[in-house]
Every structure is written in C-alpha cells, then in structure tokens.
C-alpha cells in the first residue's frame, strides 16, 4: 500500500496556518490560541523561576520588584494578561463545542468571547499602563 502521502513543504504549512486572507474565522481562532499558548507557557516558566526570589528573602524580592517596574516589563506583563484572556475565553468555546454545546453558534460564541476578552483587555490596559 505504498502511497506517498504528500509531505507538506514549509511554505504550504506557513500558508495554511498564517494566511488570513479569505480563510474563515476558525483559522484565526486556531492560530491565536496556539500563539497565546506558546507565549503563556514561556511566561509560566519564567514566572516560576522568578518566584525563586521570594525564597531568597525580602531583599532579593524587593530588588526584583524594582527591576520589573521598568516599562518594558510592564508592557510584557500586559501582553501576558491579553494572551491569558484570549486563550482562556477561546478555550471556553473549545470546551463547550467539544461537548456538543452550542456547535451551530460556534462562530458567534467566538466573537462574543473575543469581545469580552477585548473589553477586559482594555480595562486591564488602562489599569496597568497608565500611571
């Protein structure tokens, strides 16, 4: 049964996942979920490592706090919050539809979830990024 399954070229793969032109909303959701997943995982491990500062005592911890007051870190944290909102709310959609709930409306659910995420994102943005 030696059929050649066509091996995907890198270009085909990139086009399939990242070309938003004339692709449906679902591809967008998938790509967003994947990117936020990677970002959040990276943050998770950084966070765990940075928490080691707590164990080193109050001086190390206060030192660490002053380091992350730098705007680059604050903005980075904001991105993490956004990623968490997007990934979490889209995750709700995936969980719902995977159990057969709301499948005919899955596109609308996605839009609603992203609107909520955007609203929360704006609120967090104001709180975090304005002095």
């Amino acid at each position: 049964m030696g059929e050649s399954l066509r091996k995907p070229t890198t270009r085909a793969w990139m086009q399939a996942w990242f070309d938003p032109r004339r692709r449906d909303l679902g591809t967008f959701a998938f790509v967003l979920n994947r990117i936020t997943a990677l970002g959040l995982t990276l943050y998770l491990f950084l966070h765990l490592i940075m928490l080691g500062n707590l164990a080193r005592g109050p001086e190390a911890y206060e030192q660490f706090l002053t380091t992350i007051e730098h705007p680059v870190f604050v903005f980075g944290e904001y991105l993490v919050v956004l990623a968490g909102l997007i990934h979490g709310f889209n995750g709700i959609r995936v969980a719902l539809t995977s159990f057969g709930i709301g499948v005919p409306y899955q596109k609308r659910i996605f839009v609603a979830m992203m609107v909520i995420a955007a609203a929360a994102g704006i609120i967090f943005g104001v709180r975090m990024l304005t002095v």
Partner: protein
Amino acid sequence: MLAEKSAPKTGENTWLWLLKIGSGLLILTILIIHYIVNHFIGEEILLTYDEILRYYSNPIVPIMEGIFLIFVVVHALLGLRSIVLDLRPTRAVLRVINGVFGLVGVVSIVYGIWLLVVIASRGSAG
C-alpha cells in the same frame, strides 16, 4: 488495514484530552482568584514581601495555589505536546518528548511545592 498499520497508539486519548480540557477550565476559575488576590487586595499593585507571607500563612492558600500550579503545568505541557503531535513525530521521538515533558513537569511541580512550603512556613513562623 489502517487499524493494523497504526497498532497501539499512545499518542493522545480520551483521558489525556479530558485532563487538558478539565485543567483548562479549573485554571480559569482559580486564575481569577489568584489574580485578584495578587493585584487588588494589597496596598500597591503588587503584594509586598510581608503581605505575601501573611497571605500564605492561611493554610487554604498554599493548598489552592498548589492545585493551581499542578494543573497549570499539566495543561501547558499537554498543550505543548499537542503542538508537537501536529508535526508528526516518530514513535521514538514521541517517547523522548514524553520523557522530557514528564521530567520538566515533575521538576516544576516539585520546585513549586517546595517554594510554597518555604513561604508558608515563614509566614507562620514570622
């Protein structure tokens, strides 16, 4: 026959997937609590060292945060593994990935729990 060609597939199954979805939903709920406590209860936007010790002296907290830690690590690594599975690893590579992720997971959880114990005991002592 395709069933023979595929043999016993350990890649992904009902239970792993249920674990991923379940942990995801649990994370959402605890995350809200975790976030509110860390950023809205204290004086500043971030808790001070003493506030953290006080927070963790209540035994419920390290337990909740411990559960949170376990599920986040599990969810993240299962998710990473799904991404790897999309790239068609061979059986051998998949075994290595399973091993590496398993190791990373265990180390992260043990380290995290150690941190929790340290902070909680400091809180009760001080």
